[in-house]
């Protein structure tokens, strides 16, 4: 095609998806448009990875249902898929591990499609060794990239004590990259500016301005459902039907894990081994 090579990108979105909403899906579309608009990227796949039940978030219903709803929601998408790996793990899995897992899956898929290329293999080994020393963005020239897709609230959550390990943040942003969709009331640029790690790897953080404010939060959806209100047109119809069929989301379901500590907090403030 053109002389300048276009980097293939896979977007990974981790979250509760409790339930998935049109806003979650919009984020993928916005991210893809933004990245491809730069002329440097081609977004080839989107992955939705619902968190496991071990996360112990209040009101988190069974991973099985959250998976099913996400699948129904992406039925009509030709590039966004749902992956169950994270939700099938016996305990909560740190985001960085989910990212690594999907990165390796992506490389494996790429290699299957390539002819044997010894240069690429060598490059891969070098990358794994030196990822912190080289903070420049384009270190995997020609190779596909996996980026974490998130909202500005996730970026802000990096600052919450004991929620994230600093090393993990450094790896996610330094080695992989972030595509962050803004939300009104959050200023990702400020967040980046105020964090040493984020500032260091700022070139790996793509901030996507969402001009059409669309704040369909799953929390709001669950609230509406508890109160017997309609959530039609906030989520795909198939998901609305599924919720009705299985009678998910009640005052009771919202109390699940009410007295339990969130898994990451438990992990990082509990026993020293980690």
């Amino acid at each position, binding site marked *: 095609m053109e002389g300048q090579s276009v980097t293939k990108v896979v977007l990974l979105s981790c979250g509760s998806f409790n339930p998935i909403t*049109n*806003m979650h*899906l*919009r984020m993928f*579309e*916005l991210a*893809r*448009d933004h990245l491809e608009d730069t002329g440097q990227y081609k977004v080839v796949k989107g992955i939705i990875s619902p968190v496991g039940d071990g996360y112990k978030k209040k009101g988190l219903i069974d991973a099985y249902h959250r998976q099913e709803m996400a699948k129904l929601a992406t039925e*009509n*998408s030709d590039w966004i898929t749902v992956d169950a790996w994270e939700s099938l793990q016996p305990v909560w899995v740190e985001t960085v591990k989910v990212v690594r897992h999907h990165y390796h899956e992506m490389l494996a898929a790429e290699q299957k499609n390539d002819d044997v290329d010894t240069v690429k293999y060598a490059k891969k080994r070098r990358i794994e060794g030196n990822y912190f020393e080289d903070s420049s963005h384009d270190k995997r020239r020609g190779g596909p990239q996996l980026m974490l897709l998130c909202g500005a609230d996730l970026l802000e959550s990096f600052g919450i004590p004991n929620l994230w390990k600093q090393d993990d943040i450094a790896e996610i942003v330094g080695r992989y990259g972030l595509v962050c969709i803004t939300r*009104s009331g959050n200023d990702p640029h400020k967040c980046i500016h105020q964090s040493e790690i984020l500032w260091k790897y700022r070139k790996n953080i793509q901030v996507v301005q969402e*001009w*059409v*404010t*669309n*704040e*369909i*939060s799953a929390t*709001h959806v669950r609230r509406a459902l508890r109160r*017997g*209100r*309609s959530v*039609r*047109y*906030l989520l*795909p*119809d198939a998901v609305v039907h599924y919720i009705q069929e299985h009678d998910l989301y009640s005052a009771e379901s919202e109390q699940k894990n009410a007295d339990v500590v969130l898994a990451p907090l438990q992990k990082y403030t509990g026993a020293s081994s980690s």
Partner: protein
Amino acid sequence: MATRRVPLVLLACGSFNPITNQHMRLFELARDHMHSTGQYQVVGGIVSPVSDGYGKQGLVLAKHRIAMAKLALQSSDWVKVDEWESQQPDWTETVVTMRYHYGRILEQFEQRTVTHVDSTTPLSSPSPQLKLLCGADFLDTFKIPGLWRDDHVQEVAGRFGFVCVSRGGLEPERVVHESDTLSRHSQNIFLVREWVKNETSATEVRRALRRGLSVKYLIPDSVIEYIHQHNLYTEDSERRNEGTVLRPLAKQAQQPVKSLDD
């Protein structure tokens, strides 16, 4: 004895250029709200796209706007598209559209009351009502000089009523407060607060389409397909009616105030 609920139909007039998920949300929110007052039973919803004669910039042909609305509402069991307004030779004032639909609703109601005389049918069901469903921005247009006739605002507010869905601010309350006519009929104006900030507007959707950006999950897939098939919403289509005076303004300017029987 429990008071019988008033059967209520919600009518939304607008460009629907194109129809979006947010338009359809208005109906859902309004229905939930009116039910929760305990006084109403929402029995139907009508989407009435404006006719081409409206002359608004960027307005694509009514036949397309109708087709898209039909596609979008295929899966709804209570909201329907009505073509009457779009088929009128000239732009039709909102109050005239309301009178037309109210007449039909009354007719249907009277027929049903006459034919269903059995022990299961309540013989004295309250008379049905028609209310205008709109967003806060719609209420705001009343203060634009020359856009509305005072007697029309009076009739819509006094005889029919509004269900106005806002986006979380106190704007509609302020708009009602600042208008004597609306204030006089405030008991006929139902304000529904939408806490989910959602600024999906047809204008934004058209903008995204012009720029080749995705509008998936903002409007139904079937409508997206239709738009691509017919290549609607381009820079050219947005220039349609450029420089034309909006029909209501033109009409109001040339007419003295007529009587109520148009």
